């Protein structure tokens, strides 16, 4: 078969010493970037781009790709250890992962995240090689109407993943949507709610808000009087480093399901990877015999989204490799790297640049192998880091977050904004609002509004497109049924509560 010949060719390319080295550097830098809070893959890839000019194009791209999916591994680390998601895709991991860490199970959480990511990465790489070209059709079948419906579905997922009041979760999503409206309007360019602050002209950055409501808020909360005891308890409780047999058995089906969901959703440019991680979480919560464990340290809540986001990170290369169209900002930078080397990727890139395409695909598998070899031993080090006294830990996190946020745009105002969102996050905690739905609302808000408006522009204001286009209709139907499934038990519980109260 052609594929085997191609893959063999790819491995020959990827296994050359220079490319192996590039792959290793990419994986290491990616892990580092993922672990450091605030520093995003976009900023790092942009900074490293000039270095790649001196390298052969294949090696350069292997390295950049390594940074991209390596950051997915590293991103889970900060989410689990200190509750700071560095990327939108690891917001969900923070929910149960950090709870596990609080229960002294940071080791198993980190290990299962790495194992899940590795499995998902391997499967997704094979998928790219075998089905890359046909799967491209999916990316093209998604027009504005379909994206809008997908975003609606995504917001319903955000409701499901809330562990407290549904009303409060919905309010947080809408708050997030409202925050995402800050900046310039896509259609008219009008400045919205930016109060003439130039740094707000392009809206609030994800890193800024995430560092604030997760990172800074968590620190401030931990400094509260009375919180010390809790922390010391966490430090004493640390149990085994590696997952137990039961953990592995519990997480196998979530890893499998997460991989499937992530592989499919990852192909969709624009928000696919983000939705993948919490679609996976929602699925596990809905399938679980005891959903109340979720949000309180369920290992499935780490295994599924981590597998999903890594699978998505791999399959998101499909539009780039088959169409030559970058599906996100990091890939756009990779196209830039290729352009500088005189290769402009297009639909024929697979035929014209077999070294590049197949070398990259093969390197992804090698990269994933390297990442798990790097990450499993690191688990011990990370867990030991938790034993550092909090009085030294928290100022260090503050500094790392501040540098990270500053580095995104070299904008001091972003750091101040993150501080303000730290106070907002502190307030949210005090009133028992959850920050995760807020962040997801913020990430999905612009995508939802833009696609809604695009769809309505193309249909000339006819709202029925969302129902007449089959894919869109199916997505909306799934969203509606999921909402009903979520709200019904809550209503029933409320009624029961009322009854028990009246009996007293």
């Amino acid at each position, binding site marked *: 078969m052609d594929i085997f010949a191609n893959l063999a060719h790819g491995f020959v390319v990827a296994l050359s010493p220079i490319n192996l080295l590039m792959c290793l550097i990419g994986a290491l830098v990616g892990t580092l970037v993922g672990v450091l809070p605030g*520093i995003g893959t976009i900023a790092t890839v942009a900074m490293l781009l000039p270095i790649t000019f001196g390298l052969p194009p294949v090696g350069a791209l292997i390295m950049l790709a390594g940074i991209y999916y390596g950051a997915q591994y590293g991103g889970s680390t900060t989410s689990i250890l200190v509750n700071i998601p560095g990327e939108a895709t690891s917001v969900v991991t923070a929910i149960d992962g950090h709870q596990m860490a609080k229960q002294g199970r940071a080791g198993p959480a980190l290990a299962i995240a790495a194992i899940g990511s590795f499995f998902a990465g391997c499967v997704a790489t094979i998928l790219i090689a075998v089905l890359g070209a046909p799967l491209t059709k999916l990316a093209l079948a998604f027009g504005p109407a379909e994206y809008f419906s997908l975003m609606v579905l995504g917001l319903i997922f955000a409701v499901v993943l809330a562990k407290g009041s549904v009303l409060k979760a919905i309010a947080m999503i809408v708050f997030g949507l409202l925050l995402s409206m800050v900046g310039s309007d896509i259609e008219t360019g009008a400045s919205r709610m930016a109060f003439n602050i130039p740094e707000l002209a392009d809206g609030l950055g994800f890193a800024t808000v995430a560092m604030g409501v997760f990172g800074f808020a968590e620190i401030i909360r931990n400094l*509260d009087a009375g919180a010390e005891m809790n922390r010391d308890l966490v430090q004493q409780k640390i149990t085994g480093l590696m997952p137990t047999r039961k953990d592995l058995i519990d997480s196998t089906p979530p890893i499998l399901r997460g991989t499937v969901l992530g592989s499919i959703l990852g192909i969709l440019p624009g928000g696919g990877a983000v939705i993948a991680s919490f679609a996976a979480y929602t699925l596990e919560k809905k399938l679980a015999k005891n959903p109340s464990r979720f949000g309180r340290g369920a290992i499935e809540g780490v295994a599924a989204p981590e597998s999903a986001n890594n699978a998505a990170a791999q399959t998101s290369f499909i539009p780039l490799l088959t169409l030559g169209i970058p599906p996100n900002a990091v890939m756009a930078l990779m196209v830039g790297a290729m352009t500088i080397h005189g290769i402009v990727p297009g639909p024929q890139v697979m035929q014209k640049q077999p070294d590049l395409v197949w070398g990259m695909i093969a390197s992804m598998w090698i990269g994933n192998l390297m990442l798990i070899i790097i990450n499993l031993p690191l688990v011990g080090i990370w867990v030991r880091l938790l034993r550092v006294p909090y009085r030294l830990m928290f100022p260090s996190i503050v500094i790392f977050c501040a540098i990270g946020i500053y580095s995104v745009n070299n904008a001091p105002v972003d750091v101040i904004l993150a501080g303000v969102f730290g106070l907002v996050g502190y307030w949210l905690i*005090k009133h028992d609002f959850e920050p995760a739905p807020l962040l997801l609302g913020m990430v999905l808000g612009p995508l939802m509004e833009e696609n809604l408006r695009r769809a309505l522009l193309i249909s000339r204001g006819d709202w029925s497109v969302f129902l007449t286009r089959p894919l869109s209709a199916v997505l909306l139907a799934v969203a509606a049924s999921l909402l009903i499934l979520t709200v019904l038990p809550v209503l029933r519980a409320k009624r029961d509560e009322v009854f028990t109260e009246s009996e007293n």
Partner: protein
Amino acid sequence: MAETMGHSATATRNTSVVIGFCLLAIAPQIFEFIWSIGTIFGWGAGRGPATVLISHATALVTGAPAALIGAAGGETKKSSSDVLLALIYSYPILAVAIVTLFMTIRSAQDYVGGVILMAVALFALWASSDLQGMRGFSFGAGTAPRMFGGLLVALSAGIALSGLLADGPSMAHYSWRGPLFVMVAILFFALAIRPLGLVVTAFASFMIAATGSHETRWLEAAIVGACLTLGCAILFPYVLGLPMPMFPRFLIQ
């Protein structure tokens, strides 16, 4: 605070909440006033403090009657942004504050949380009130913000209502030391990174943040801070290649 059971305690609690809401209702005006003091010293652009005070006071006092008369007279004159702020933001919150006086709050956490969130939503409604709405079949810039703003007003009202109807936790305790010093550290970092460079800024911010905890031991913090600064100075500019000033600007030139 010596708290006793019974009605008197709820009553005092309510008054403080009401006063808080009243302050919240004019918080943007107060903020602009404080901000405007800076213009005396030539910092930033904007209206002077006197103008701010007078225009907001007149807007707050005459806003409602003027708008009512305008509506009755069928006038469609556009109100100024100050008057809109009073109408869209301040009046509803003041109304909530008045209503609060006569209510028994069963869950302060939900009630206060809901009302503050409502204030955020109303503020967003005001902030997007100058944006264009629907133009034929196509959305205007203001359509979506107003839609989400309105939705959030409704949802937060629901949360506040649930705080009146169902028993729940009361207000959580806020501490001041941690938030204050962490915020000062962040602020210092933001203002100093450009002129003073990474080395000075990171160390100073580390020490300021460390002040936020009463467990901090100074010598230990200074040593760790110095090591961390050194680590950052190697890690960020060299390993990751992020362009960042390292030393104070005046030392380089």
